[in-house]
């Protein structure tokens, strides 16, 4: 079964879908190959007892009018309805060692006011830091891609300092540093390793505004499916790419079911280490391959799902709970310095997800790994006990704990186990979208940035590079 296309995108996650849509919009005959049973499986979430649980999308920044996300949804023809989250406290940060609860507000002045009130002795530094975040964001190529041109490759290169270095330069209070870095949870790279610029783009952009999307992940998938159909792209599900060959200028992509797709332009959005296994041998120099293989995985998610009583709307703020002010510690391989994120849905009855991070060293992505089941039960118990003792009002509102998911669950349903792909470590090599093979590109959240907008931004950059070279 040989099929010919102008372009083939391997991987039907957000980044792959966006790439395919951009190509199809330019009139390219485009196919998407997705290994799972549906596009972007992580966005589907799941339902129990009539309540929907999100697994892929919780909130996003930059969806206000004039912002990048708003612009790009329109450009992609995605019929999505963002709604603003609670302005004075979309997230609450609970610092367990000191008992402080800090409300993350958006709007620079609102956030500044809350921070000044909590840390009056560091008022000047807070103002200077927020100015620096704003300045960094306004200079960001990615968040202004719709407004200006820049060197594409230099845009892909992150640079020092790290978030930790900047926080240490500005602040004394470990609590304040924790408050400003706990959102490392949203990209999975610890403050000591993420660049300040990358952290700003992913979580600093929430200082301006924070948004939900009506219908959540399912609505996002539906919007992509509709727009792809309108633009004539072909979606192949249950089609896992197992080998890419390069012959006579064409890319030949073989699938596990015996399919063969031949194309001029191929974009792989699968995990870079998997890409190395399926790509032609000369895709990179050997030294570069070795450096890619040395990049660390971000932690996976260990999540408890519960349903709240009565359908009573309980809480509009999500919660970050940290048991150590050293945020680098939340990436450590045990539950001793545990930290977690509690998400409250906006459905009735309300769904509750308690999400903690599990480093790859725990091997929770492998059900056959030693003590997998023991760990799974132990971690669930620890989190339930924490909720009961620290947040009795939440514990009392819980009707029932319904499910537990581990990185093995994500791996089974979505095809990957690390929460955010490869770590974006400022001191390690960068994976650029280009390869040594003309017309073969690599994209996805491990390239520029993870998250809904990170994946979209990565796809846009790749598209700009492709349209410049063809």
């Amino acid at each position, binding site marked *: 079964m040989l099929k010919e296309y102008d372009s083939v995108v391997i991987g039907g996650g957000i980044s792959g879908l966006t790439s395919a849509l951009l190509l199809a919009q330019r009139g390219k005959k485009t196919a998407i190959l997705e290994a799972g049973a549906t596009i972007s499986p992580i966005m589907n979430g799941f339902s129990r007892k009539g309540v929907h649980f999100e697994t892929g999308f919780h909130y996003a920044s930059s969806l206000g009018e004039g912002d990048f996300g708003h612009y790009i949804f329109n450009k992609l023809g995605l019929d999505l309805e963002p709604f603003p989250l609670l302005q004075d406290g979309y997230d609450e940060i609970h610092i367990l060692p000191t008992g402080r609860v800090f409300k993350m507000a958006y709007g620079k002045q609102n956030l500044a006011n809350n921070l000044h009130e909590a840390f009056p002795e560091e008022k000047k530094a807070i103002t200077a830091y927020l100015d620096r975040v704003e300045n960094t964001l306004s200079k960001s190529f990615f968040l202004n891609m719709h407004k200006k041109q820049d060197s594409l490759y230099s845009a892909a*290169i992150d640079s020092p300092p790290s978030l930790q270095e900047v926080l240490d330069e500005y602040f004394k209070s470990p609590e304040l540093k924790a408050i400003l870095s706990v959102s490392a949870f949203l990209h999975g790279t610890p403050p000591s390793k993420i660049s300040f610029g990358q952290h700003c783009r992913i979580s600093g952009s929430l200082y301006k505004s924070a948004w939900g999307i009506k219908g959540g992940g399912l609505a996002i998938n539906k919007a992509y499916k509709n727009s792809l159909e309108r633009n004539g792209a072909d979606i192949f599900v249950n089609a896992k790419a197992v080998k890419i060959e390069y012959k006579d200028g064409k890319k030949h992509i073989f699938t596990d079911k015996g399919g063969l797709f031949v194309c001029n332009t191929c974009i792989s959005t699968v995990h870079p280490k998997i890409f190395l296994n399926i790509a032609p041998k000369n895709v*990179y*120099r050997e*030294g*570069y391959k070795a450096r890619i293989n040395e990049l660390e995985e971000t932690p996976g998610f260990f999540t408890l799902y519960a349903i709240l009583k009565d359908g009573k709307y309980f809480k509009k703020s999500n919660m970050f709970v940290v048991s150590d002010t050293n945020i680098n510690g939340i990436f450590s391989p045990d539950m001793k310095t545990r930290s977690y994120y509690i998400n409250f849905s906006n459905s009735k009855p309300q769904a509750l997800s308690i999400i903690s991070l599990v480093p790859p060293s725990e091997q929770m992505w492998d059900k056959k790994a030693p003590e997998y089941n023991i760990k799974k039960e132990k971690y669930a118990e620890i989190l339930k006990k924490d909720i009961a003792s620290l947040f009795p009002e939440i514990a009392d509102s819980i009707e029932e704990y319904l499910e537990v998911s581990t990185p093995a669950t994500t791996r089974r349903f979505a095809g990957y186990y690390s929460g955010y792909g490869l770590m974006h470590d400022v001191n*390690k*090599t960068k994976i650029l979208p*280009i390869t040594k093979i003309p017309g073969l590109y690599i994209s996805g959240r491990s390239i520029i940035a993870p998250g809904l907008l990170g994946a979209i931004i990565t796809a846009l950059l790749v598209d700009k590079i492709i349209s410049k070279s063809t």
Partner: protein
Amino acid sequence: MQKEEIIKIVNRALVKEFELDESLLTPEADFVSLGLDSLDAVDMVITLEQAFKVDIRNNYKVGDFGSLGGLYDFIEKLIKQKNNV
């Protein structure tokens, strides 16, 4: 760090990590003629930053070095700056 040592470390990285022929590594050699593309350039910058513990990415301006000799000088300058701070 002496210039000779800088040259030795840069050349060793180019031979080992970028599979270049050592005999081609003269100060006059430019990166294009060495067969290095933009992908290699990014990888090389980060590899050299690690080797010398300097920040090339934030200090580099287009035209700072076009040849290997220019790269040696640029790294020497960054190391001197770092030691003076």
